């Protein structure tokens, strides 16, 4: 699965480019994300604007990132389409992430949150 990566300040913005994250691609997706975290990235923004459908294994891959960070970092999501958001709500995963409509909005919010955390 192709994932584009860009760093803005200390926020790693990851954009999966395939329209579907499911059982056939979730392992690779998770593997790449784990690698990014193991390289020391702790503040991650997942831009899901290309994603049309994600199944439970894809959602499971995202949850596993939270577990890996173990409270010592931040993951936010942006660009979620309605269909994908309905799956987050179905699983109640919408209650454990912060969602933003665009990468710019998300980055701004994460910067502010980062400053508050340091204070």
């Amino acid at each position: 699965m192709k994932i584009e990566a860009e760093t803005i300040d200390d926020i790693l913005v990851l954009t999966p480019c395939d329209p579907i994250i499911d059982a056939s691609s979730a392992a690779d997706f998770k593997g790449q994300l784990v690698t990014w975290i193991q390289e020391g990235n702790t503040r991650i923004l997942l831009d899901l604007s290309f994603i049309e459908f994600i199944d439970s294994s894809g959602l499971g891959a995202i949850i596993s990132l939270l577990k890996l960070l173990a409270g010592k970092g931040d993951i936010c999501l942006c660009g979620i389409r309605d269909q994908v958001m309905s799956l987050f709500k179905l699983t109640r995963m919408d209650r454990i992430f912060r969602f933003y409509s665009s990468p710019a909005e998300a980055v701004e919010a994460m910067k502010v949150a980062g400053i508050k955390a340091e204070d």
Partner: protein
Amino acid sequence: MDSNALEPLKNDPNSLRDSLFRHLKYSLGKEFHSKTIRDVYLALTLSLRDRLLEKLLETEARYQAADAKRLYYLSMEFLIGRSLGINLTNLDIFDACCTALMDMGIDLEEVREQETDAALGNGGLGRLAACFLDSLATLDYPGFGYGIHYEYGLFRQEINNGYQKEKPDHWLSKAGPFQIERTEESCIIPLYGRIEHGLDLDGNYNPMWVDWRVILGVPHDIPIVGYGAKTVNYLRLYAAKPSSDFDIQIFNAGDYFRAVEQKIKSETVSKILYPSDTFDTGKELRLVQEYFLVACSLRDIIRRYLKTHQGFDGFPDKVNIQMNDTHPALAVAELMRILVDEHSLEWEAAWNITQKTLAYTNHTLLSEALEKWPVGLLEHVLPRHLQIIYEINHRFLGEIAVLWPDDSDRLNRMSLIEEGAEKQVRMAHLAIIGSHSVNGVSALHTDLIKTSLVPDFFARWPERFNNKTNGITQRRWLLKANPLLADLLTETVGSEWITDLTRLQGLEPFANDPAFQDRFRKIKKANKENLGKIIYQTTRLKINPDSLFDIHAKRIHEYKRQLLNVMHIIHEYFRIIEDGHEPAVPKTYIFAGKAAPGYWAAKQIIKLIHSVGDVIHKDRRVKDRLKVVFIPDYRVSLAEKIIPAAEVSEQISTAGTEASGTGNMKFALNGSLTIGTLDGANVEMLEEVGEDNIYIFGLKTREVQEMKQAGTYRPLNYYHEHDSIRRMMDAFWDNRFCPQEPGLFRWLYHHILEKGDHYFHLADFLSYSRIHEAVYSDYLKIPVWNRKAILNVARMGKFSSDRTISEYAREIWGLTPVH
């Protein structure tokens, strides 16, 4: 530009003929001269569908303009039967269509025979649902059916050497194109998976349902037209398909077999109707089917609601959902899950909305027949729902503990969870707790629900419990099934009875009129002759149309006591050959019905009926005064031919076992006299038709209950004290009806005499025999018999499903017709 620019379709014979030609050519690619009768059937169905869809869209526009409250009837079964005839009737184009086809040299009856029954149900519960849809549309209520699009309906019954053999019913391969697939309204349904326990952003407990598998629910709509064609609602049936993206990815990855395996597994969900009319313990597929129905329905209902409304405070004002038995009871947990998990409502608000939206109909009196699911199975298939059920139970028991302190027995009795070696979820309790209304289906049944079945719940919420006596649609069961009688009635009292069955009271002055009686009797004779032809075609038995037609047609079940009927036939046989009794008029006993494939005793009773018939028919001493017939493959279209021919209708369940019955109503409406116990709706039929016009016998419910509780019933006493009983029972031991297969029916001897005769056959035998004598005596007095039969027809007004639905609409759903 909009479709209103189209000219409305016309229904005169020329327009119908043009429609038919157009569909033959452009839908089927056939020239007229090369058509088959099946082509004509398909083209006619498509022509009717055009007209139904035109009205369906008009109806929907009317509902939207009124922002009408809608009723959704959730049922695992809809026993629809054939649709072509009822559509022609309700569209009021039967005669026009007949003319159009006749002009083309085609017989409408031959076309109608091309249609196969849609048998998406087992018996009364499924047929009730279908009658209700007819009444909802006829009364202009926004009421819709939601069910499962089974690929295989109830099995076809063949008889082989007297034994039932089940054959698959692939109805879809022969189904007409009435249905419309609505792929664009498919739903994604999650199943299985596990709960990941976590915390939300505020640090509160947050259970997440993860690792689920997904199936797709694809709706298929069948238009349901009310009489007079002002309203067309729909029955939405969901078919299960694999989630196609998932499927394609695996295929692309090269694992073809896994892709196909997953495809097959997903499609299994809607593959076949469970053929039992009691529940199948622990069958995972059945649980998945029930959730599939509930999940697809609720998704669809909420999606439609949210298109035109904000928030859920007004949801119960716009939506009511009726659960037909406990099969859709998961709707309680699923609606809570959607409101709380997906729409972030607080628990109390969600619970308030859920209770105001849902209502439950109970169809069972036997507590052992109440549906339960093992907790382990629910945890495996629906982990989040199990959590919700536990939470519902916790809060509910908390309330009960406050109201009835220090009463742990009550808590155990009322709990949603039944303790034991394997914990089970009591679905009836879930349905009751989650609903604002709980109804039985006859006055007697509702009374027993309150006093015997769930008295603790009645004590907690007396206001929720109410009765809605079942009913039947006179349009299918008289107007369509018995056109000769329908014409006579219309000629006599006008046609208003078609939409107001109480108008048949106008027949009462004619009950003694010789000319009317004569026409009435001739119609019955003609119907009997038709049935005689069908019996000959299917069994090769020749039946005397001048004999008394005594008919017992329903599912084969011990509590319905086909066995009691056979016992009496054996008694009558012995009276003829051993006692020298010479009945003046011959009798034909007709049975029909299917046994659940796994129900051994019911299948043995079918064999018994055939074996008794074989012996009687070969015995020259009988001289054709007694015939015993079993007509195979009982289904709605066959019932429409059997019922009009009946003169005596057997409704002889052990008192306290049949919740209502609806066959009883159909027979009486068609001029049959009832032999029955005081059970189910027979009690109300007695009240309506009068004790002179119905033949009641046997123990009453209270008597049966008392004997059971005291343990005082001794079948052996009856055996020893009564010669007729002993002679009849000894016949099972002595192989009188199975000379070639000795011992075949000895199980009956043991079952009845030594194992307690659970359904009180011997206790009711003498009373049953006496009532048959009374029936026979009246039958010989032709004017007396005709009068009683006519009065039955005249007094069945209460038992129209129009009355039943009006009561549901007024008292449970708060529904208003949209004219």
